[in-house]
Structures are given as C-alpha cells and as structure tokens.
C-alpha cells in the first residue's frame, strides 16, 4: 500500500450492551446502507447509515482480523477515528471454540433449511445465517464436517 492511505487508524464498535472492539487497524470494510464501504487511513469525514452484512476489520496489530455480522446503525469517520454504532451484532470474538462451532453449525443447518424454529431467542433468519456462514469462512473457523 502506498500514498497517504498507508498506516493505521482507530476503530471502535459500540452496541448498547458492550464495546465490542477498540483497536488500531489497517482497513475496515463495512456494509453501508447502499453497498460495501471501504475505509483506510486519512478517509474524509463521513457519517453513514449502516446496512446488514459483514464488517471486516483487517491488519490489526498482534492479532488476527476481526469480523462482525451487523444489522443497522451508524458509522462515523473523523480524524482517523472510526466509530460504528450498531444495535444488532453477531461475532465470534471472545467466544470459545465450542460455542463458535455450535453457532456455525446452527447457521449451516438454517441455510440448508433443516432447522425449525425452537424458541424466539434461538431463531435466526436465513439471511443472518448466510452471513454467519460467510463470516466463518472469512475467519476460517467452524467444523467443516458440520456444513450442510
């Protein structure tokens, strides 16, 4: 990478329940309301509505990339500081491998149409399930044997 965009900037992901991410990173790809939005260092000041999709945070020092399925909210970029406000976020961050595998296998079965709704809380729609499966592929997690 060359030019003015070289370097890191700070990204923070907030939900009403917790601060899910606060780190420096090289790039962020965000599902904006009208398509994917890529942010690098020295991006112009921006306030955008967030849509439904996978947020990818790349080139985080000393750790692997982070991925989140987010649905609705806002993203603000100002002075190399990006803040994303989201209501509904699904992530593998901070979860043990068993939980992640269970999530991925559940999502696989929903995508394959094998899952019927058990309770309101467990119910995830097919679009969300597809994003979880995609996120698992990006993050290279989940049990391959369970894929449907």
């Amino acid at each position: 990478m060359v030019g003015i965009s070289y370097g890191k900037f700070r990204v923070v992901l907030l939900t009403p329940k917790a601060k899910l991410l606060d780190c420096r990173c090289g790039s962020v790809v965000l599902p904006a309301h009208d398509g994917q939005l890529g942010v690098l260092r020295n991006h112009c000041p921006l306030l955008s509505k967030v849509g439904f999709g996978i947020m990818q945070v790349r080139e985080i020092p000393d750790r692997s990339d982070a991925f989140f399925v987010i649905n609705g909210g806002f993203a603000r970029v100002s002075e190399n500081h990006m803040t994303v406000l989201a209501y509904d976020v699904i992530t593998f961050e901070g979860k043990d491998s068993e939980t992640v595998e269970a999530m991925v296998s559940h999502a696989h079965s929903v995508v394959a149409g094998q899952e019927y709704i058990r309770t309101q809380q467990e119910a995830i729609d097919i679009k969300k399930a597809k994003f979880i499966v995609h996120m698992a592929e990006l993050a290279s997690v989940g049990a391959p044997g369970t894929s449907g």
Partner: protein
Amino acid sequence: MANTRNILLRRNAAANISKVTSTMETISSVRYRQYYNQWAEGLAFYDMLAQLAYLMVTAQSKVEHPLLEEPKIRSNTNALIAIGSDRGLCGAYNNEIFRQIDTHVRMAKRFGRELKIYAKGKKVLGYLEHLRIKPAHVYENFSEVPTAEQANEIGDFFTKEYLSGRIDRLGIVYNRFFSPASQKAQTLTVLPVVDLIDDLTTRATVIWPWELAFEDFELSPSAEDIFETLAEMIIRTSVSGCFLEAAVSEHLSRVVCMRNASDNADDMIKELTKDYNRARQGQITVELLDIVSGVEAAK
C-alpha cells in the same frame, strides 16, 4: 425487668428479620451488580449517540424533519411514563416518583391539559388508584427491564403518537442513576426530540465538544434520512435506558435499606442478648435467695 421468655421471643423475631433482610440484600446486590454492568457498558454507546445528534442539530445546513419542528400545542395532551417498583422495602425510592407524578397532575390541572399516564410497577399503580387516576396503559409484559424489541415497540408507539399529533410531549418519570453515590427522581423529556438531545448532550460523560472540530463531513444518505434513523435510535435507546437506570436505582436503594435493616436487627439482637443474660442472672439470684432463705427458715 421483662421476663426471660419474652426477651427470647423478641430476640428470635429480630434474628428472623435479620435473616430475611440480609437475604433480600444479597439478592438485590446481585441484581444491582448485573444491571450496573449493563448500564456501564452502554455508556459509550449513549455518548456517541449524543455526539451524532449534536452534530446533526448544530449543522450549518438545517435539517428539515417533523421531529425537529418547534413544539406546538396541537392535542392538548401530554404523555407520561411513570416507572416505579413492584415491591417495597426500598426506602424513599417510590415516594420520590409519587412526588413527581403529583407535580405533573397538578400542573396538568392548572394549565387545563390532559395527562395520559403509562404506568410500570405495582407501587405506581397503587398510587394512581389512590389518586383515582386510570392509567392509559400498564406495562406488564416485562418484569424490570424491557428487551430491545419491547423497548423499540414502546419508543415507536410514542413517536407515532407524537407525529400524528395525538400527544404534544412525552416525559419519563424515573429514578435516574448518576453514580452509585447519587440517584435522583426526575422527568426526562423524550419528545420533542430536541429537548432529549439537549439532555443527552449534557449527560454525556465526556466533555466532548472539545474533540468536535467543526469540519465538513459527507452524509450518506441525506441528512433527513440519517436524522430520522438517528432520532428513532435515540428515542428507543432512551426508553430502554430509563427502565435500566430505574432498575439499577431500585436495587441499589434496596441494598442500602436492607443493609441498614440488617445492621439494626443485629444491634437489637446484641442488646436483647445482654438483657436476656441480665434477666437470667437475676432469676438465678432470686432462686438462690429463695433456697437459702428456705433453708434458714427450716433450721
């Protein structure tokens, strides 16, 4: 001097009370910790919402939106959500809410306006019954804090009512949680939304106008679209935030009350134990004297 049996009965009663109050204290402190963590984790989110709202309403190019229009008297009706507790034993927690409700009822009468009260908590319902006021709605589908969906439903309902002109203002009466050392009953104005933004920006924990450079920024989609979503988010978040803060305050105030009650009961037990020992000692002395004097008389 009271007889030993009475003292023992009183001491047992105090011990039972102490057991009950300390159990209630433990339960409330666990709930308090849980709600407090939830509240603390959400602070950054509220601050950021306040920043965005401030950016939008102070922008050089004015945002045109029905929610941003000057408040007018259209329906002559105000709505009030009153959040109290279901149980007592939490000190002056509910009384402060009642005082606020009283003020609103008095003011509504004075200015000839209708006041619709949406109640939460059995104590508030009892008080409204005492005032002979029928609540417009009672929130019974959640115990203390609504789920995100339920809070959204409440927020959206009042936004619709406001936009259609059926209500002129919406306030929430609740015990605001500033810190573990400070909680206060107050009325938060949620609609018109400008008042709410004003309140949010003053409550934000960071003195953030310092970090807000007056820069041009790109908006995607239009400012009106963004403001609509932002206002919806702020109203929903404020509604759920008020219920959460009320729950934090309630449990904290119950912890404090129950701790005081347990301490008082323990002091009482100590005093009664002393009295009991003294009475028992006196009784033994009397019995000994009886024996001695009986022996003397038999000689």
